[in-house]
């Protein structure tokens, strides 16, 4: 564990217990019942959280609705996060539910500027699950935790009746100390900041979509799940306070993460489509299925907004790391059109990049 100094830096975007509570959401949740879309990470999910869940628990830390809750504990800036994992199939090329559960939580802390110090894991197991399947996931989790350098220090196990769960659900909780170099937050973004991406997008989402088997496509793709802390560490070192904001674009993809950043703000983000790293197979699958790669989930990529004057150094730092070779600057922060993400094409066309609505469904006919 890092020793905490007696006077940790107190940027205004964190350590917010004394901050005025954000105004209560004006929205009221009017959907009659919960549908799958409410869990898909797009607009419906956002509405559920903002208008039904968050108002009930209203407090200044929660009001930020970021990947991890950052607050002060005994003078130390601490980040905590919890995440539930429900994935079908449990194992897929390049990963499995156990690996996602470890990396996902480690990454939610990492993009908040915190190195994970401990994880806890809750397993919800469906009766009838072969013990070998569970054993394999436990081993996977242990390996993933070792790779990320974080111990799993506790948890819970529940078994539900057959038919009441899809084999195995995993929930992980993580805690870390916010790195002293970090001073992150959406309110630190200024026009001219650069948008960096650590590598090719869509590998995870397309791998899962195809692994379900009902489309019957073959590819050599595999999930990109991995811990992101090495990238965060490199950016903190290269950029210092020029590192403004980070996010791992999981469900809803790059489009949703960037939209959540600028929504309701005075900023816009313009990305240049041809600069977004993308594997041929992901592009091929997206063209075949009418999907937008910007909406596809990632488990091992990160978006970072950095000040213009440190962008080159940041990019060099990312590219020097294994797995960061294809890191790219994909766009910039602008003043207009405020609150929106737009994409420009090499030939001069412009389009709005919207948040995902529901799960990405193939457009086939």
């Amino acid at each position, binding site marked *: 564990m890092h020793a905490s100094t007696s006077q940790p830096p107190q940027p205004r975007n964190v350590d917010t217990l004394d901050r005025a509570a954000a105004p209560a959401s004006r929205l009221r949740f009017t959907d009659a019942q919960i549908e799958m879309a409410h869990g898909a990470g797009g607009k419906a999910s956002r509405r559920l959280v903002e208008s039904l869940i968050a108002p009930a628990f209203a407090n200044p830390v929660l009001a930020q609705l970021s990947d991890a809750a950052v607050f002060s504990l005994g003078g130390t800036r601490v980040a905590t996060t919890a995440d539930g994992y429900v994935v079908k199939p449990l194992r897929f090329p390049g990963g499995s539910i156990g690996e996602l559960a470890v990396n996902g939580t480690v990454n939610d802390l990492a993009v908040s500027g915190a190195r994970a110090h401990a994880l806890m894991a809750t397993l919800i197991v469906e009766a009838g699950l072969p013990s070998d399947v569970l054993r394999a996931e436990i081993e996977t989790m242990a390996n993933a935790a070792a790779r990320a350098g974080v111990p799993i220090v506790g948890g819970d196990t529940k078994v539900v009746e057959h038919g009441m769960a899809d084999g195995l659900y995993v929930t992980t909780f993580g805690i870390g100390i916010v790195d002293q170099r970090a001073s992150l937050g959406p309110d630190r973004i200024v026009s001219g900041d650069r948008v960096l991406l650590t590598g090719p997008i869509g590998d995870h989402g397309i791998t899962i979509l195809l692994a379900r088997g009902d*489309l*019957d*496509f*073959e*590819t*050599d793709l595999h999930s990109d799940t991995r811990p992101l802390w090495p990238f965060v560490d490199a950016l903190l070192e290269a950029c210092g306070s020029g590192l403004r904001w980070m996010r791992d674009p999981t469900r809803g993809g790059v489009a949703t993460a960037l939209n959540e950043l600028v929504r309701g703000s005075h900023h816009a983000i313009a990305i240049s489509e041809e600069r977004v790293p993308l*594997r*041929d*197979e992901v*592009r*091929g*699958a997206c*063209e*075949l*299925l*009418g999907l937008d790669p910007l909406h596809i989930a990632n488990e091992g990529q990160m978006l970072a907004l950095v000040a213009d004057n440190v962008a080159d150094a940041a990019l060099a730092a990312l590219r020097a790391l294994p797995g960061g070779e294809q890191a790219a600057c994909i766009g910039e922060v602008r003043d207009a059109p405020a609150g929106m993400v737009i994409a420009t094409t090499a030939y001069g066309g412009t389009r709005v990049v919207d948040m995902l609505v529901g799960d990405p469904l193939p*457009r*086939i*006919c």
Partner: protein
Amino acid sequence: MAIPGQIVECNADDPLFAKVDVAGVRRTINVGLIADPGIRPGDWVLIHVGFAMSRIEEDQAREQLELLRMLGEEMPAMEEVRGYAFSDSPEAPT
């Protein structure tokens, strides 16, 4: 949604089916609609809902791109282009 793909493997057991590749994504599709005069690995086809709908004519594609490239050239060449394709109906029904 229809997208170009390349035949990579014909099915010896059932000639109605063949494997196509779209940028590294592969799938078996039905080629019954373009079976005459026969398909070979390397052929490009238009894929829609698991069927090859049409064979892609390389010559036509090349001709079109050449025409559009010439549009950017200076006046004499452009006049030629106009005469060649834009003013005359390029493919009069017969």
